């Protein structure tokens, strides 16, 4: 209550700041009304909590074949092994928990790298006219032409054979990050093209605003919304790529990920179907969460749909 009166009596300067805050408040209000978007957010938050604290309660260390020694390999789901065990005695439930941590890390960290590169390249391509802009656009479009997924597989394989095997999941983070940025930079470039021709930017220029002020005050907020949406969808895409990469046998050895579990499960799917089933369901749920979140954000942040 006291806060309210404080705001009411605040000098006009604060009103200005408050207005810029309500843009996000409006978006949040719109987002909250979107049930599927909220469900996506809830799934993502649940998995983040699960990935951070889950391993504290994981029954076994990652990749532990302890159950093999107890004669518990290839067991169907039970109270002791909720998701069953695979042929080497790895507890699928326990490794799924470790996998949640690794998969989320791969998805988010690779997206962070891709977003940073995408922002830098996209901004540069959007701002520079002439030769540099043309070359950057060429590079972006080049990435749309090459079969990215196949090259990701090849890079992972060649790097592990040729350079170093010990990077673990971070190798995958790096490769996915280095291949993931073109889509983002393409959109950013387009947005900057669009925004910089708008009248209020011209007005700012006429008022004598510097390039940096225009960049951070006007261009960045405008570009931020598609970036947030794209990043959320990219996390989903990165997790799917991770799963395929491990399934095809291109992942680093001895890492607990959902893709690795599915790979092991597929080899014996006719005998131990649960090994591929449960991690797969986790993948679908988490990816669904990020996709729903991304779609929800897209709706909430889209000014064209705003009433």
């Amino acid at each position: 209550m006291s806060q309210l009166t404080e705001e009411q009596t605040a000098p006009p300067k604060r009103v200005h700041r408050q207005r810029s805050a309500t843009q996000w408040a409006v978006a949040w209000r719109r987002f909250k009304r979107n049930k599927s978007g909220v469900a996506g957010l809830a799934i993502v938050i649940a998995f983040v909590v699960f990935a951070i604290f889950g391993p504290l309660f994981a029954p076994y260390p990652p990749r532990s074949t302890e159950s093999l020694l107890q004669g518990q390999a290839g067991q169907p789901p039970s109270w002791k092994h909720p998701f069953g065990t695979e042929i080497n005695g790895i507890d699928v439930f326990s490794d799924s928990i470790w996998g949640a941590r690794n998969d989320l890390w791969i998805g988010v960290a690779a997206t962070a790298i891709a977003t940073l590169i995408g922002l830098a390249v996209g901004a540069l391509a959007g701002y520079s006219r002439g030769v540099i802009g043309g070359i950057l656009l060429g590079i972006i479009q080049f990435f749309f032409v090459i079969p990215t997924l196949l090259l990701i597989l090849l890079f992972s394989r060649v790097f592990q054979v040729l350079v170093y095997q010990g990077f673990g999941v971070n190798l995958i983070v790096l490769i996915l990050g280095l291949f993931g940025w073109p889509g983002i930079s393409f959109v950013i470039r387009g947005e900057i093209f669009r925004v910089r021709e708008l009248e209020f930017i011209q007005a700012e220029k006429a008022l004598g605003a510097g390039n940096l002020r225009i960049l951070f005050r006007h261009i960045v907020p405008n570009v931020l919304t598609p970036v947030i949406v794209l990043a959320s969808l990219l996390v989903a895409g990165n997790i799917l790529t991770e799963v395929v990469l491990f399934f095809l046998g291109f992942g680093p050895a001895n890492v607990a990920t959902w893709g690795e579990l599915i790979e092991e499960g597929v080899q014996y799917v006719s005998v131990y179907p649960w090994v591929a089933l449960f991690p797969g369901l986790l993948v679908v749920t988490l990816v669904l969460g990020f996709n729903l979140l991304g779609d929800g954000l897209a709706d909430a942040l889209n000014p064209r749909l705003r009433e």
Partner: protein
Amino acid sequence: MGSLINYIIRRVLFMIPVFIGVTLFTFLIGNAAGNPINLIRLAFKGTLPQNVYLQLVAYYHIGENPLIRYLYYLWDLIHFDLGLSITSQRPVASEIGPWVWTTLYLQLSALALALLIGIPIAIYSARHQHSKSDTTITGIAIFGYSTPTFWLGIIFIYIFSFYLRVLPSSGAVSAITPWWGNWTLDRIAHLILPMTVLTYVQLATIIRLLRGNLLEVLKQDYILAAMASGLKERAVIYGHALRNAITPIITIIGLSLGASLAGAPGLETAFSWPGLGYEFTQAALALDIPTVLGITVIISVMVLVANLATDLVYGFLDPRVRVS
């Protein structure tokens, strides 16, 4: 008409630097270890036969400087000479042909089916926005692009091949006895499961995009004007709204066609479907560099051509594109 020809020439000219970029890129990967032979040797762990080694030295012009080697590579490429596969000892170029065909008929049949089913469903969904069926449709669609294709394939294999035993689990054709007593039916039997999975995934993308586009188009003033002028809703949707909503979809299909040429390596591997994706995976695991590079280059060139075709269709459909 002049603007259209101009547009075509510009698009074709744009392909040249991209083609050089793609070939340079694959060339660099092949030479990541100095030259392709070093990489191939790693796969053989020092047991590369002497005669094969000498052949490779001659083929890759080892000893020349890298620029000359790249030009030789381009020269061979233009003559459709992609070298010998290390694992099969056969020319890569003659091996790739059947793989391209196997991938294409899986991908294209799925795409055609997805378009056939997807467009009416998307229209229905957009016309009945927020209805129960719309929610169900978008729900099913979002599951489609959240599911790893190959994993869905595995589930299907488990249900239909291992449990019900009604459909084959792997390959594009039987080895000895055909399914359903006939070789044509045998191919169809092998196609059903992977095609169904792929159709579902592509259906999801088409519904999602087309529905979104239609919703935006249907809010436009010219739709209101068309409705107000007394046209039937069906005529407005098919005659005005769909045409505007579907052009962006064509771009997406063109782009995804490129991605789908790479095959879904996961899906193809799950079904042991002998297409480009599956064979690339096998070659990359075996470090069969000539095959790997051959597939990459062929796919890239096909994507370039597909993109060009998409651009042309797009320019034909949407006059605004030609001018800008």
